[in-house]
């Protein structure tokens, strides 16, 4: 076990070290071969239980996690909850406690509320893997993207990466910005003004280039990442029409001529063909979209193996991102920069009473 890999949960990329990221990618590389064998199974997680707890619809990510768990011989259970905790009547914490009582080794969670995995991690002994939380992070997507880039470019340091589209609502964009810049790439983002706030420039200390025109972001790019138009997150309320989006912000073949000659195109899926990406690019020679999916299984095998299996760090301390998210930002300063203690009242929040009513959100 690498002394550098000391992680109880995978909640986001932001709090990971370069060594941890590299170790995850290296481990994923070794798992890639398993999927190429005739018998696609190794006994690494035999006897371990992985629960996929999905509060948002997902085919690709859930299937990818399920296949990853099964190829490691884990017992994988899928729970899809179409509604949020409020309308369902049971809180996320109560759901977590009930699952916890069945002693899973790992819970993979996707949820529409940013921070839901952190919430779960505070209440759970199982390893928590964030499979996408609101507009916050999607760490395994960024890892699989990095694995794909590394495979094709041989490196990440020094590359120019352009991320195009609805950056504001994108957890994929955030996780990729953190990961790629930690590994030495420079990142620029572009899209409609309503979906690419200028504050993204200071998301990370090394900075992000924020461009208004996608052409400016694409110049000499080695990697072009196209983000999904997320109609379920009301992307369409931020632009006049999908037609105009397609014309001004949809990636066409001609755009790729601005990028480096050997530029690669990526998309986290599912694609809206003809809106954010043209079929010529999606199906063309520069597209790595299906390889991303293949690498997704390898990355998720590595994550499950390292967090739930034999690779589990013995001295892995419970983290909730507290250390990594503090103190590094220019806005966290002065005598008033707050650091309240994480308050999770496990007793106090027990199901003394179930409230089905929508909580009032005013003070």
């Amino acid at each position, binding site marked *: 076990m690498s002394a550098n890999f000391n992680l109880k949960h995978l909640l986001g990329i932001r709090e990971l070290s370069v060594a941890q990221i590299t170790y995850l990618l290296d481990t994923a590389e070794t798992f890639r071969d398993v999927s190429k064998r005739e018998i696609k199974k190794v006994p690494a997680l035999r006897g371990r239980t992985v629960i996929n707890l999905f509060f948002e619809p997902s085919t690709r990510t859930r299937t990818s996690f399920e296949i990853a768990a099964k190829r490691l011989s884990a017992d994988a259970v899928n729970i899809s909850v179409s509604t949020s905790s409020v309308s369902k009547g049971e809180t996320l914490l109560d759901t977590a406690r009930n699952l916890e009582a069945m002693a899973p080794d790992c819970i993979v969670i996707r949820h529409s509320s940013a921070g839901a995995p952190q*919430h779960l991690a505070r209440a759970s002994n199982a390893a928590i893997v964030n499979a996408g939380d609101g507009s916050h992070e999607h760490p395994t997507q960024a890892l699989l993207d990095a694995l794909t880039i590394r495979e094709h470019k041989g490196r990440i340091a020094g590359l120019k990466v352009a991320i195009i589209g609805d950056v504001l609502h994108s957890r994929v964009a955030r996780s990729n910005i953190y990961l790629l810049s930690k590994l030495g790439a420079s990142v620029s983002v572009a899209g409609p003004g309503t979906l690419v706030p200028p504050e993204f420039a200071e*998301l990370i200390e090394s900075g992000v280039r924020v461009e208004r025109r996608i052409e400016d972001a694409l110049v000499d790019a080695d990697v072009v990442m196209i983000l999904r138009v997320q109609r379920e997150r009301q992307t369409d309320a931020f632009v006049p029409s999908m037609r105009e989006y397609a014309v001004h912000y949809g990636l066409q073949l001609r755009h790729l001529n601005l990028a480096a000659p050997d530029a690669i195109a990526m998309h986290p899926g599912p694609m809206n063909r003809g809106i954010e990406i043209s079929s010529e690019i999606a199906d063309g020679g520069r597209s790595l979209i299906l390889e991303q999916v293949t690498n997704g299984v390898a990355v998720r095998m590595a994550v499950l193996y390292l967090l739930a299996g034999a690779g589990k760090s013995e001295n892995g301390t419970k983290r909730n991102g507290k250390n990594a998210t*503090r103190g590094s930002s220019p806005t966290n300063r002065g005598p008033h920069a707050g650091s309240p203690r994480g308050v999770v009242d496990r007793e106090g929040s027990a199901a003394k009473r179930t409230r089905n009513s929508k*909580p009032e959100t005013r003070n």
Partner: protein
Amino acid sequence: MRLLIANGYVIDPAQGINTGKSVFIEDGRVVGLLSHSDDVPEGCEVIDAVGLIVAPGFIDMHTHLREPGHEYKETIASGAASAVAGGFATVCAMPNTDPVNDSAAVTRFIIEQAENARLANVFPIGALTKNSAGTELAEMGEMKDAGIVAVSDDGRSVPSPGMMRRAMEYARGFDLPVIDHCEDKSLARGGVMHEGHWSLVLGLRGMPAAAEEVDALRDCALAELTGARLHLAHVSTRGAIEAVRRAKEKGLRVTCEVAPHHWTLTDAAVADYDTNTKMSPPLRSWDHIEAILAGLRDGTIDAIASDHAPHHADEKALEYDQAPSGITGLETAVGLAFDLVNQGVIDIERLVEVLATNPARILGLENRGTLGADAYADVTILDPSFQWTVDASRSKSKSRNTPFDGRVMTGAAVATIVAGRVVFLHPGFERLATSGKVLAKGGSR
């Protein structure tokens, strides 16, 4: 019944007093201030406040007592107990109860419950519009007759400027201050924290400072148009404070308050998705805190108010964007205000001014917020050097939703006296209890 709060240091900005005096109280009213060397008046019980500051009873302009309707969060009795434990002799109850306090019946109910509790004075604030829905005027006159001291649709700013104008004009007829929680809903867009660096990092929907600022500017323009008394609740942004500053320069009758969490914590505190950092207005960035501190220094900010907003632990244990906004504040406000004194932002006289003198003046509470002759004998006794630790589990509130649990404070309200009755003593200050024994004239002290 006679009481002498002897040997303390009296700070009463309303009278311009800042000196060693004893406060002589009879039958729930202040008779006058005596010199330390004066004889103890005949038949007086004596509280020896040597080394302590004796101030007019603190007044919290902005409290959510949750009763009627949300008694599982707080009742008027538990809220009043929390108030006096935090040094507040008086609280003003915001109308967003269920039913909303938009009628004399609800107003009378609140006053009756407060009288039954016999702890803090409770002055209800009535709704500005019926059911705080922002469409029809509430019966302000009836409510004023029943005892309200101001009108507000707190938490739901009246969306239509035309309606707000009419409400301000109507309130002016009863000389009721209009209190507004400035938040333009179309800009706030259901945001759950301040829009800025941290909302981007955390992927949480942000509400921009401009959501507060456009409403503050609108309200100040309407104050100019109508001549109404306008009070902006818990201002938290540079722009809102600047709007108040300009309105005051113009001579408009505009005042504002600030809540302690807004200068104590930045939006960086949300980083762990702790729902006890979720409130409305949200925690802001350092730039806005600097503006708050400047406003406290230069007098633009008139009052400190707790915005005590209790919520049950079950509700706060939800996902960040699902949890309700608000934190408790009655028992931490004075301690956090002392932080300002300890950091040299304001002096202790100004602390008394923003917690007692000005709230009484803004709300027109006669004979309160001062220790002048004939004032109600509401007294807050302060120990500026007392060190204590916030322990949410021992709060008198029914709720525990505070981000300040475990915080070490220097400076506290150590005794609260309401109408001449000692209603709260901080643990360790039992010596301030009235003995029940009446001392003879000239008795030793």
